[in-house]
């Protein structure tokens, strides 16, 4: 592909980063503001060349990069797609990112990719299958991965484990780290009527290698209950910032990402969200 050995940054700093959007390339190279690292969706960089990979190479010279996969379907019943795993390995071997993360969700079944992160039941059977998949990913990539908590819209009657216990068990079996999406906790807590604070209090924060913060939309279900939708299409709302503040008080500072994937705003608006994260990170750093 391109020249190898971009191993400039070995870890993500405990500072704000943002999800990289190509329309912000020039702004970031000129003045990244409070943004100290960038996250890219792995699947957008699986071409053979051209501008996406050229931009990524430039960015990787100046910023630690987190590669965030959205398509492995780790929570799928089917075996992992080994071709896709090879593509991920190819990207990670070239870029040598400071972090690699994926989701506790499924997105592919019977060869069809659904382009959404779909929830799974939490049972003894699924914890084994997810742990096997995570171990396979870490084995093929030759690196530790972070597993992200999903946003949930509905519950599975068959679940026997809480999400936190499920994640803790996967960590125990595989040695993986966790990516804690605070917005997803807020969404799932509302949608499944569990306590967001209880979730954070139970969470194994010592294994968290990264936080995500993002925006969500509001809808209602058939019973007229508020249903929050994980849209990443607007600013982070105040109650999510408050939950982040609470979590950081317990965990200490960690790399913190602002996600804004739909209705992408001009760079200053996104950078302002990173500045807001800085203020909270600074409180617990000093």
């Amino acid at each position, binding site marked *: *592909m391109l020249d190898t050995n971009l191993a400039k940054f070995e870890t993500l700093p405990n500072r704000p980063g943002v999800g990289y959007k190509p329309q912000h390339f020039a702004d970031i190279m000129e003045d990244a503001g409070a943004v100290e690292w960038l996250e890219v969706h792995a699947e957008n960089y699986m071409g053979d*060349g*051209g501008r996406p990979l050229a931009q990524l190479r430039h960015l990787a010279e100046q910023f630690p990069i987190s590669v965030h996969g959205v*398509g492995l379907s780790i929570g799928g019943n089917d075996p992992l797609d080994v071709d896709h795993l090879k593509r991920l390995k190819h990207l990670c071997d070239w870029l040598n990112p400071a972090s690699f993360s994926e989701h506790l969700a499924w997105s592919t*079944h*019977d060869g*069809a990719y659904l382009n959404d992160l779909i929830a799974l039941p939490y049972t003894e059977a699924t914890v084994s299958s997810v742990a096997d998949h995570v171990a396979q990913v870490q084995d093929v990539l030759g690196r530790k991965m972070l597993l992200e908590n999903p946003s949930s*819209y509905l519950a599975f009657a068959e679940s026997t484990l809480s999400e936190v216990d499920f994640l803790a068990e996967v960590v125990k079996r595989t040695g993986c780290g966790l990516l804690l999406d605070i917005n997803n906790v807020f969404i799932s807590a509302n949608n499944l009527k569990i306590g967001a604070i209880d979730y954070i209090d139970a969470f194994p924060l010592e294994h968290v290698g990264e936080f995500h913060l993002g925006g969500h939309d509001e809808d209602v279900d*058939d019973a007229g209950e508020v249903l929050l*939708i994980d849209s990443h299409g607007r600013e982070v709302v105040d109650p999510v910032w408050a939950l982040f503040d609470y979590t950081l008080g317990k965990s200490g500072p960690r790399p913190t990402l602002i996600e804004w994937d739909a209705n992408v705003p001009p760079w200053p608006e996104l950078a302002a969200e990173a500045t807001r994260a800085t203020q909270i990170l600074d409180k617990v750093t000093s």
Partner: protein
Amino acid sequence: MSVKQSDFKNAIFDAGLPVPNGLCNPDGAPAQKRFSVYRNNVAVSLSEALEVTFPVVRTLVGDEFFKAMAGVFLRQHAPSSPVLMRYGAQMPAFLDSFEPVAHLGYLPDVARIELALTRSYHAADTMPIDPQVLQSIAPDDLLLARLHLAPSVHLIRSNWPAASLYHANSTPNATPPVMQAEDVLITRPEYDPAVTALPAGGGAFVAALLIGTPLGEALKTASAASDDFDFTTVLGLLLAGGALIKVEEHQKG
């Protein structure tokens, strides 16, 4: 009570199917609208992926029609991998047989151009040859040589004015299309792919190069295809597009 992912997937793509048993609201009631979040996310996100790849097809049929058509397409052709830059390869064939657009005969070729543009955008980086190289080879040897084209180069041979239609619906003040067949060349000078209608014989010439025909034979093919074939013009287009990446001289026995 265990929910099968195959039932989940089938119900996402077919709103006529019931929501799988075992999916609940927080009060334990069977999920209905909550399941439709997934139906909506999948349909909207795949439809948007198609809009990104086929903006001119969308312009030609209108936004509302495109969304409805994308809904039909994505249910027949779900992506086979998470790499969505490769999604939509079946679109030209789909348009060929999709009755509501049967009167827009040129639509499949416009879709072929847009697919080729995406492939070209993500193609491997290559170094164009220095045009001097062509002059440094003795004419007889050059005729036996094979000219290698960059992986970003594509050719669409259309019975319609596909390149002109593409430009007229993507560029302000473009020349209106004239009803004629067009051979469409896609090149990628640096990072941005470009769409060019080739002059007479150019399609036959580029098609010959793409399958590894030596230059002399490719020239004969092009001249046979059109008396007006002009090598200098087509060579100029290829050089300007950074399309020539290697001259492979014939190995003398």
